[in-house]
């Protein structure tokens, strides 16, 4: 039961943290659940310009994110399914979700939504190589080729520590980009200067919007879970109960950190935002270099 509510708890925690930084009490932790239930009861409004694409893509995105959730170690010690190169499956499923969102946005024929889709597509191109570099580097350290293997490595030497730290930073930037968090994107506005994701769902209503909000919460949880699994020294080894508890505590901590960053930093200007995202690629490259150094090359 708690596990099913985990995505919304994450979003609720981030919103609570932001509210506390702003001096407010903040909404209830499960506010997003009430929002989704309310939206499901509403009758949607479709634009006359849209086609079946608009009606179907929110559910395609939800299905893609649910499929991605199968391979991510959400509950700490093991994902539901682990196989070789599952991180490629993860990356490309995120790509499917993104493509679905962009197609839904372009379907409305609105210039605003086209703008959001264009920015989303551009910044996604910088994020994907970062993820692959991180996974390649971590996999080379552990000699494994799956997501679970990559994150369950400990830091045994200076080079491994550097790789681990750089990977953490790169993953944090990736989560900020994918989860539409500051300083990459502002999740509270859809105005031209500040938005990427929020504007793509401007025309969605009712059950479609509920599906999209669920997808967003789930994607954020997956990303946070990846980082927590990397931080957790008990991932993949040691007692399962300890690993689980530590994992959940780490996820709470990371949610608070993300909320804090959102409260203290403004979003970067669009012309320079790609440099921040490129730092994720640099982080991945540093991790790869550290791994190569450790392996005896250079």
């Amino acid at each position, binding site marked *: 039961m708690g596990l099913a509510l985990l995505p919304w708890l994450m979003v609720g925690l981030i919103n609570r943290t932001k509210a506390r930084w702003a001096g407010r009490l903040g909404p209830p932790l499960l506010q997003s659940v009430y929002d989704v239930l309310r939206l499901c009861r509403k*009758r*949607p*409004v*479709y*634009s*006359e*310009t*849209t*086609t079946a*694409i608009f*009606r*179907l893509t929110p*559910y*395609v995105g*939800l*299905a*893609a994110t649910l*499929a991605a959730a*199968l391979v991510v170690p959400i509950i700490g010690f093991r994902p539901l399914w682990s196989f070789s*190169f*599952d991180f*490629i499956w993860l990356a*490309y*499923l995120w*790509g*499917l979700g993104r*493509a679905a969102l*962009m*197609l839904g946005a*372009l*379907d*409305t*024929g609105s*210039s*605003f*939504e*086209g*703008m959001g*889709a*264009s920015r989303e*597509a551009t910044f996604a*191109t910088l994020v*994907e*190589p970062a993820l*692959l*570099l991180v*996974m*390649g580097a971590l*996999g*080379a350290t552990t000699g494994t*080729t799956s997501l679970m293997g990559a994150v369950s490595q400990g830091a045994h030497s200076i080079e491994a520590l550097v790789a681990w730290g750089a990977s953490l930073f790169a993953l944090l930037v990736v989560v900020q980009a994918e989860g539409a968090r500051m300083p990459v994107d502002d999740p509270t506005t859809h105005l031209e200067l500040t938005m990427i994701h929020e504007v793509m769902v401007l*025309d969605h209503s*009712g*059950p479609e919007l509920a*599906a999209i909000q669920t997808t967003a919460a789930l994607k954020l949880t997956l990303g946070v879970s990846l980082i927590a699994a990397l931080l957790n020294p008990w991932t993949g080894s040691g007692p399962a109960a300890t690993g689980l508890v530590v994992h959940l505590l780490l996820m709470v901590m990371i949610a608070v950190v993300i909320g804090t960053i959102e409260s203290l930093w403004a979003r970067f200007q669009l012309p320079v935002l790609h440099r921040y995202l490129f730092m994720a690629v640099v982080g991945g490259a540093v991790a*790869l270099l550290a*791994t190569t150094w450790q*392996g005896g*090359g*250079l």
Partner: protein
Amino acid sequence: MLGLTIAGAVLLVGALCALALPNNRARAAAALSTQGLALVITLGSVFPVLAGGPALAESWALSYPLDVVSGEVDALSSFFIAWSLPMTLLGTLYAVGYLQRSFEEGRNGGPHFALLNIIALSFLIIYGSRHAIIFLLGWELAAVSAWLLVIWDYKNQKVRFSAFNYLVSTHVGLLVLVAAFMYLHGQTGSMDFAAFGRTLGVSSGGRSFVFLLLGASFALKSAFFPVHSWLPRAHSAAPAHVSALMSGVIHKAGLFAFLRFTLLIGEPEEWMGWLVLLFGALSALFGVVYAASQRDLKRLLGYSSTENVGIAAMGFGVAYLGLCWDQPALVALGITGGLLHILNHALFKCLLFYAAGAVYRSTHTVDLERLGGLLRRMPRTGWLFLVGALAIAGIPPMNGFMSELLVYAGLLGQTAPGSVENAALVSAAALLGFVGSVSALAMVRAFGVAFLGSPRDSAVTDHGDPPATMLLPMGLHAAGVVLLGLAPSVGVAFIRPVVVLFHSGAAGMAAVDDVLSPLQWACRGLVVGIVVLGLVGWRLGRGARRHVTWGCGYTAANPRMQYTGSSFSQPFVEIFESLSPQRWRVKLSGKIFPPASGHLEVHVADAVEGRIFEVLGRGEQLFVRAAAAIPEQPRYAFGAGLVVLVVLVGLLVAGGVP
């Protein structure tokens, strides 16, 4: 081999009939029926080889200068023949509908249909021959037939120029190929590929030289970086089915020949593998970055061909490294990934070109800036284009994801002997990830701008979906895309005997199956999930109200305010300005309420081609200046020419030419 010879003869008869028969309907029927018959005969001959049987081989004893001509159809040739001929048949079927208006205006379709038969015949020659001269004959036949097919619209000067550009490029490649063959003939004294293998199988400076020559020729044929610029130009000029066949089928002959010579090389050197990987990666990178900014839909698809051929070459580079490092798993992953990607690319690229052709036939434009909202008026074409677009972006559950996955598995499998090599492979994988996401950008842009939203130019009218002769090839290709996406083992089953040729065998294919099987189930589960959630969502959305698109309170929105293709790609192109420079022609007043109408035009030129011609131009200037510096003495020119002639003849006589 008898079957293939009969099939070739049938195709030739069909070509002659297509030229001789009186009306277009009969000509089309002749071409289609003979291609169908040849297809059946060929598949019957070739399937046993693909099922693991022995290769078909035959030799014909002819007189000088060909001596003995041998032909052999092994698993590699069979793989390529098995899908080239059906796709040519589907292209011919598409042509019947696509060119219908021209036929109604009185054009003679005979040469066109005959050339389509000749193309199919040239495939049999290229893929079946083992004699260098016959191979070159087939190569040239395919190139010239393709050129003649491209200039269907010969009254248009731009079309003639683009086709001429293609002709010159392909003949430059031919020259290089002839040079390579001449060198090999000089070393071995024979024109047979098996004899070439004697030189190619031994590591030496000569082999490296020949490898570079062959690589350059095949790179030009298959439109690799940096010699890719003729492809988008030819594709935007040619009729849709010709572009589809060129991109999907004809230019894969370059990759086939590359693999054929790899088999002769046996165990390559490591720098060869890195070179192939490098040029594959560069082709993928440049192809996709240019594809993201094109406004002509067919040019976009042409650049995307360069990208996909680059991805296949990355797979082959991985296989080369596997051959060099003695890693059968790596060889299997690389070869299977590359060949599966070639097959997948043929499937979805032809589909996309057919859909683009349907759009052109309906609206008379393929300019993204003028299209929009076509999904409502051409639903079948639109949905089929979507299937192709998702496949080419490598998005699961379509087939492009499966073949790219195999290339990833080769790059990220940590089978390299050293950590530096491993880091290089991981970097290549990251580049492939970048290419994948940019390709998603390009394809979402192409589909979204052309088919979604509202029409951007009210002057463009459309005539709805194309006829069944055009929809059937599209549908069949889409079915192939979905099939190979959900069950890639079907495609892998045909590639298995090819991998055996590379001495990889069971251990290697086990690695491929290990990688593919969990993902096959994952993709099927994903499709089930999408269908279930889609049905649930559809039910939840019943009883919805309809209204206009939310314009944030602005009530006078019009379709011209939508994001266009160039606006969509603008942020991306600005970040990567150095790779694809833009040219802006701007006349804007800068005021919020401008007094007069303004003008903005954005062009993305092919910087690679521009640079090549700039260098050539500077070389030509140097040459002209040097030639001008030689003083002109007409009295002595005759004597000098005579001396040169005598020296040349003397050299030839000394060299032993009879």
